[in-house]
């Protein structure tokens, strides 16, 4: 059986193709403003990688904020459901899943089949999503890739007062002006973001293992701050940004855990 999962996030379109529940292809394309065209591009790349054509697909599930913008699909499924399914597939002991995407942060608790028990979403405010670190990297004039590792070089804790991305931008500019080290600022940025995500998780409660997915999971500075805040080590799967698309493809295949 061949299935495809499409995750249309706020910033990227991710596609995963499964053959008998094994990943055979994956692709990631910037969504930009022509979401439909770029989704098609991502699908074409994945199909080519798998060496198959559209007609070989048995079922396609679309998920994410722009799920309805996929060029074709059989069903849509909520992103929290896909996240937990994907996380349990990659890490069977996962019982709590945190997904920090470009414009949304989500926390969920699930059972061993990836079924959701409880979830909480932080949307509509950039301070609790990847958009925050992105804006901060611009304000600090440090690339997003360098921002995380930079935090690990911090030597002192400095507080970040602003809770709003826009105000935090001004605060960072003032700190740069006052010659605060960029490493310390980077840590302050990630601590602030981690405290917002961890309190969202605390609201629903968390069980081990905690799996962190989404693009921001690749940011080592954020992961370090989050671990410290939660008092545990979160599990970050390889290619965390594909977990939603993987879950969608698993849902299309009717996967229910324990395979």
């Amino acid at each position, binding site marked *: 059986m061949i299935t495809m999962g499409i995750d249309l996030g706020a910033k990227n379109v991710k596609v995963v193709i499964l053959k008998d529940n094994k990943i055979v292809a994956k692709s990631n394309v910037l969504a930009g403003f022509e979401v439909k065209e770029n989704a098609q591009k991502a699908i074409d790349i994945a199909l080519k990688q798998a060496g198959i054509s559209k007609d070989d697909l048995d079922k396609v599930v679309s998920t994410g904020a722009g799920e309805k913008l996929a060029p074709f699909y059989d069903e849509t499924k909520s992103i929290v459901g896909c996240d937990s399914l994907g996380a349990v597939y990659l890490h069977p002991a996962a019982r709590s899943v945190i997904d920090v995407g470009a414009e949304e942060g989500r926390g969920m608790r699930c059972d061993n089949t990836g079924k959701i028990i409880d979830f909480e979403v932080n949307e509509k405010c*950039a301070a609790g999503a990847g958009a925050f670190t992105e804006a901060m990297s611009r304000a600090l004039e440090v690339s997003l890739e360098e921002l995380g590792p930079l935090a690990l070089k911090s030597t002192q804790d400095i507080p970040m007062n602003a809770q709003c*991305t826009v105000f935090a931008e001004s605060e960072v500019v003032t700190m740069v002006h006052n010659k605060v080290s960029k490493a310390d600022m980077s840590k302050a940025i990630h601590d602030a973001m981690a405290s917002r995500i961890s309190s969202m998780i605390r609201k629903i409660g968390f069980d081990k293992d905690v799996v962190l997915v989404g693009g921001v999971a690749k940011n080592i500075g954020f992961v370090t701050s989050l671990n410290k805040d939660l008092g545990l080590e979160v599990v970050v799967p390889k290619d965390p940004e594909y977990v939603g698309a993987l879950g969608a493809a698993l849902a299309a295949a009717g996967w229910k855990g324990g395979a």
Partner: protein
Amino acid sequence: MVEQQRTELWRWTESRWMNPDLDWRGKLITSGIDVGSVSSQAVILTDGELYAYSNMRTGVDSPDSAMKAINWAMENTGLTLKDLAYTVGTGYGRVNVPFSQRAITEIACHARGGNFMYGPTVRTILDMGGQDCKAIHCDEKGKVTNFLMNDKCAAGTGRGMEVFADLLGVSINDVGDLSLQVDKEPPPVSSTCVVYAKTEATGLLREGWPKNKVLAAYCSAMAHRIMTLLERIGVEEDFAITGGIAKNKGVVTRLEKEVGIPIMKTKYDTQIAGAIGAALFAKALLEKTKK
């Protein structure tokens, strides 16, 4: 009245005013300094009457901004800092006014100042500042009866408007008028968060929307956002708006329509409400200690 204006190409217009018919000599002189995140004001009262004020951009630090504001207000009056019997600081930088005797919250000062500027019938004061938005209810004496303040989120503040002015390359002074130059009111920008609203606006520009239409969509989103904030405490007549965004016709006109209550007019600069309140408290506190 002598009105002086300093025009800056960048951002909003600074202003200074003094009452030439009053002589301060032999009178009780109190002052109020409002050091905000974006603007700073100094107000001088003689026996509780408005004598002079200044309104300028906040500089590098609060003490410096406070000094500049009071010096501009005192310019050509013969007044010196020594003549000020009591000074109250307010606003975001209120604890950093070097020549003040006390700091008072901007909530209390806006209610008191609003009462002075708009008269005892004002019951609801909305202050839209550079980095916050306050909704205040007060009684006929200008005493606060209910308030809320939103300074956590940039949406619905002057900062949010600045971000948009920047994005569109339009001077903040022109945003309001430009936004009203639309044949039909476009649907408001749907994202509250300024960061997401910016992304949305970029998309609209790409779709070919002209700048004024995008500004109209943002001004109406801001009016709506402020309306929902006001709803928490309710709007009681009479209703007045203070602060910098009160000068943005694009937001005020739309807000007036949403609220359905006329917005009071004033001859004063809407940005000086906090500083007037501070100067009035200075007088009241001085009289309280003398008793």
